[in-house]
């Protein structure tokens, strides 16, 4: 447990510092009030709006742990959203509709995984195919329109709330916890890390690396399907062109801010989720702080660069060096001088 806390400490500290900074500029940032039996406030808003990226980050963490990358998740959001909207407008039951959407996500993942693990295409290329083709598929499903619906049960998944908390804000932590349990209470996490670090050695040790890779892309597809469902439910319609647009990049960024290496190996889902929340906090914080909207992207970029530089292992080594140097000058300066004198 303490290991996990140590692992996510940099992300947690970053988030706290960010929140503190924004609170200085916008004092009401952490205020939460209750209106109509639901919690309201900027923090709740962040938890809800960050849901899509957080969900994607869960699957993306696993894919990146295998030294892969999944560029198609944004497009899968569009496909699954379109299927969900199509299902509900064609009078399928809510359960059937959701199952179809999730099945589509899994199928998309199976496609990606097969291209990567069986055919051996590089992940960035393999998933680029669905990234570009996927929106076309979604448009075919919506027949080029924005497919709207008015089913309150379905809309509840996007804009409803449970115990006063928005449903999307509950969905991503639950998904994250379930995935983390599945990884760490079974051997899956270890096997994924092994394959990501050295696929050949892992296969020679008897790990079914091919199957594991396919499963990981399917997990990513599953998470994207969940994100597609809440996105569609939230706006009560499927927009094949804009649903999940560029979210794959935010998801990758979340995983990277979470301190997971793009070279594969060790991963932490919790850290990626904190990364997703950091991104959403920056987005929301910039708006609240009242900067002109044209500054948003530049400020976001600046903050992200600062966070990544602070996390850089090379900088960490330098910092350790300087801390040691300063420490020994203050405390051990006398003994060092003596030693140098002797030499």
């Amino acid at each position: 447990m303490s290991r996990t806390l140590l692992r996510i400490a940099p992300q947690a500290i970053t988030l706290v510092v960010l929140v503190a900074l924004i609170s200085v500029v916008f004092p009401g940032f952490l205020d939460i009030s209750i209106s109509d039996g639901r919690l309201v406030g900027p923090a709740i808003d962040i938890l809800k709006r960050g849901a899509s990226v957080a969900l994607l980050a869960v699957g993306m963490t696993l894919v990146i742990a295998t030294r892969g990358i999944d560029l198609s998740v944004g497009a899968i959001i569009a496909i699954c959203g379109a299927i969900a909207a199509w299902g509900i407008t064609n009078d399928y039951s809510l359960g059937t509709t959701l199952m179809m959407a999730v099945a589509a996500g899994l199928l998309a993942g199976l496609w990606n995984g097969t291209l990567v693990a069986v055919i051996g295409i590089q992940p960035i290329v393999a998933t680029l195919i669905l990234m570009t083709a996927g929106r076309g598929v979604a448009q075919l499903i919506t027949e080029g329109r924005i497919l709207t619906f008015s089913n309150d049960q379905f809309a509840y998944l996007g804009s409803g709330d449970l115990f006063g908390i928005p449903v999307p804000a509950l969905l991503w932590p639950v998904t994250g916890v379930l995935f983390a349990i599945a990884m760490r209470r079974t051997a899956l996490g270890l096997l994924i890390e092994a394959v990501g670090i050295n696929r050949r050695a892992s296969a020679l040790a008897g790990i079914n690396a091919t199957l594991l890779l396919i499963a990981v892309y399917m997990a990513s597809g599953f998470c994207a399907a969940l994100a597609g469902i809440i996105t569609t439910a939230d706006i009560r319609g499927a927009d094949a062109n804009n649903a999940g647009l560029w979210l794959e990049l935010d998801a990758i960024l979340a995983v990277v801010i979470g301190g997971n290496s793009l070279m594969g190996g060790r991963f932490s889902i919790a850290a990626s989720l904190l990364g997703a929340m950091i991104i959403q906090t920056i987005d929301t914080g910039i708006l609240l702080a009242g900067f002109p909207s044209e500054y948003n992207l530049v400020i976001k970029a600046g903050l992200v660069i600062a966070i990544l530089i602070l996390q850089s292992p090379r900088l960490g080594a330098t910092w350790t060096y300087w801390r040691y140097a300063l420490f020994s000058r203050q405390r051990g300066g006398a003994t060092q001088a003596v030693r140098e004198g002797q030499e």
Partner: protein
Amino acid sequence: MLLSITGLSKSFPGTRALDNVTFNLEAGEVHALLGENGAGKSTLIKCLTGAYQRDAGEILLNGQAIHPRSTNEAQDLGIGTVYQEVNLLPNLSVAQNLLFGREPLRFGMTRGRAMRAEAEETLRTYGLDIDVTRDLGSYSVAVQQIVAIARAVQLSGKVLILDEPTASLDAEEVRMIFEVVRSLRDRGLGIIFVSHFLDQVFDLTDRLTVLRNGQHIVTERTSSVDRMQLIEHMLGHQLEEVEEKARSARGSEPDARPELLRFEGLGRRGDVEPFDLRVGQGEVIGLAGLLGSGRTESAEIMFGARAAQSGTARDADGAIAIDTPRNAIAAGFGFAPEDRKTDGIVADLSVRENIILALQASRGWARPIPRSEQKRLADMFIYRLDIRTSDAEKAVGALSGGNQQKVVLARWLAMNPRFLILDEPTRGIDVGAHAEILLLIQEMTAEGMSILVISSELDELIAISDRVIVVRDRRHVAELTGADIDRDTIVRSIAAPDAADGKAA
């Protein structure tokens, strides 16, 4: 003396790749540089070409001390290199490749016609009359090699290093390259020729130098060395202590063992011709042969790491599937591969995780080994194999070569396999760990495990094997048992047919 190297040393963490090596090269000679994997050939070449900086020693070129810091610098000094893999640009024309970086210019633009003429003229001196405007990639590997040689000679022109230039060529192409090399020698270049093909060494070279374990073994005129001596030099003579122990322990009747496994007709075209192999219970089988003889391929086919095109495996209960590593492991096999770093360890994982990896994989993901059990297994093997690590949670990549090898061994011992394949289990590890691993092999077979060992060190094989299979030219050519297992017999089998013919004549 064109090139003279004295006292050259180079160390890497955990290994001493070159130890006080001497090498000299005269103008107008072809000098073979020989040795098994890990002997130090490529380190020597990299020190010469500036890819590595030497720790100690002196390199004199025409009497001047040189310190190349990059391949470019070495080239400017006059040392050019051609590698096994042609490292030119296949999508540019022959002329562009040949004159890359030194194109004839006018007003800052390349002059196509002058370039073509110059390239054609250059290649004609190599006996090559080809269309230099076509893409390099459209020509055979031999032609590409000659272009690479021509380029290297034009850029440097004193010393030419050929690093296994013939590895992927057929006999006719080899002849073409050799003609080019001979003409360069006659022009006065000093040529260093690295190859595993002894025939080619005898055919082409004037002198040869053998390295083993980073040390200079011998330099002689090629014409005064015979093939058997050369193989002796390459494979070396060590470990007499362990040998003594084993000789007394070796059973007198090897056929008395109950049969554990039987492989029939296993083979794969281009890798190894179909072979049969019986494995007795508690037996150590040694697989002897030079690098590239098909010994590693044989092992990989038996483990399913390389798909067999023919053949079956069976045990007492009937046929067993060994088409994938997973199936082979399920059948009770284990395999510690030759290249630990790329095929063996999972560097960023801890010692504990590496040790339990195969066991966990065979149990399936849904049944994790409890943390306490993992810890117990790891600590037990760290103690039993004397793995030098601060604790079980240290990343395996941070351990020395010998300890990494012990971790890979522990991974398989944790599975308690009935048949364990060890490919070069003692390569590149220090002497202490070396002896420990050999003793361990003896312990394990005493408990009934059968082991197949591949090794370049004959004494090691002689010390531990109950039976030795000799592999040559991708065929299993001899099987030695009992008193036949000695240096001479093995070396003769590896060297045949030429050596055997020589004896008969």
